[in-house]
């Protein structure tokens, strides 16, 4: 109860950090979708490239979060504004689930359906937008869902390089050896992750073709 009282007292700051957190997660997920979905489509259509692309995304995923933030810090344009850097790092982490699920989703579309469509004279873009993407949509969205949940957690590390977000509380709490402050960051972050998970999951079910 102590914690809740603490959060309530400081609700202005909790709210501000939550919004910062959301901004980091929102932009990075958006960018990861803008890059990852076209890339996933491309490798689904040209299987030759799927190994190198998925392997690269995998490798990025294995770099420890804190290390990646550290690596990027000296990069000129990025280092000037740490939030740019945080968004870039989070985007890189969000790529793998999005690329992989887009790839899997499109490969999972029944080839007979695609061939029937092609045989009836659908253009390649009509096949992509009216058939493949629509049938792969729920798989792609479940990739987005994983990406969002990962990002909400990882974004707490952004505070280590001063990019804000709920991680601020966590690091501050660690310095002060005060559980309440740590939890003031951790609880809203957990709630955000749950809400995002539920939200995208709901969207996924709503858009399910059958």
């Amino acid at each position, binding site marked *: 109860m102590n914690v809740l009282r603490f959060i309530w007292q400081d609700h202005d700051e909790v709210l501000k950090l939550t919004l910062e957190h959301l901004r980091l997660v929102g932009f990075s997920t958006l960018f990861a979708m803008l890059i990852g979905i076209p890339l996933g489509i491309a490798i689904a259509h040209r299987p030759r490239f799927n190994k190198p692309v998925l392997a690269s995304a995998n490798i990025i995923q294995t770099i420890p979060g804190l290390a990646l933030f550290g690596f990027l810090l000296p990069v000129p344009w990025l280092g000037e504004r740490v939030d740019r850097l945080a968004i870039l790092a989070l985007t890189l982490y969000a790529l793998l689930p999005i690329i992989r699920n887009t790839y899997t989703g499109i490969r999972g579309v*029944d080839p*007979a*359906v695609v*061939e*029937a*469509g*092609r*045989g*009836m*004279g*659908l*253009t390649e873009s*009509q096949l992509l937008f*009216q*058939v493949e993407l*629509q*049938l792969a949509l729920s798989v792609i969205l479940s990739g987005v869902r994983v990406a969002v949940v990962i990002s909400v957690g990882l974004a707490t590390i952004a505070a280590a390089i001063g990019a804000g977000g709920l991680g601020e509380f966590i690091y501050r709490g660690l310095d002060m050896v005060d559980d309440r402050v740590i939890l003031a960051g951790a609880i809203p972050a957990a709630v955000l992750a749950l809400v995002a998970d539920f939200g995208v999951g709901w969207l996924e079910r709503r858009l399910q*073709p*059958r």
Partner: protein
Amino acid sequence: MIEFRDVSYRVAGTPVLSGFNLQVQSGETLVLLGRSGSGKTTSLKLVNRLLTPSSGEIRVKGVSNAEGDVIRLRRSIGYVIQDVGLFPHFTVERNIGLVPRIEGWPEERVRARALELMQMVGLSPDMAGRRPHQLSGGQRQRVGVARALAADPEILLMDEPFGALDPLTRDELQREFFLLQQRLHKTVVFVTHDLREALRLGSRIALMEAGRLVTVAEPQEFLRSTDPLASAYVRAFGDGLESAANRGAS
């Protein structure tokens, strides 16, 4: 209407179809008969350019199908495949109206056309809003035929359209298709491995084996053929073929 001129098709050097010559007359139902791997489906896909021949040419309505826009070509040819390849996320009405809609027909006309076709293939209008998975195999196949007919193409390519159906439903659909074709006089190329179906529906039967055309014959002729492969087929299917060759009369 469709002419194969010395067509060969190879995959990684292996011939799938070689020296294939065949003419399909306007308004006839030409059946490509043969076992799996004989090149029937390949021949069909060469017509609408889902495949491109390694050599030779295919002429459709007098012009080589390699010329001109492939999308136009395909939209002018109806295409029905086994398990129909209906779009699972589209309703029956949208599946049937697919080509007219992408061709830019006005919405009311597309809808009217879809209903007209549903009636033609024996589907009740209240099925318009259903999805393919809510239909029986026979109903799906009817939708597949209706979809292929939607933009009123002169040519229909059918790849074992009734192959996955139970015998009773297949019988029913063959009968209906035969009657429909008597009214519509489309130029049909029909792929099957079922001799009975070939005799029943074909105006001519082209027997294929290992990528080559063995013989072309009318149903009655086919039964009396002295060609060893053709008579092997006839023997394998046993009695009762005469009545099949007598068409719907049975």
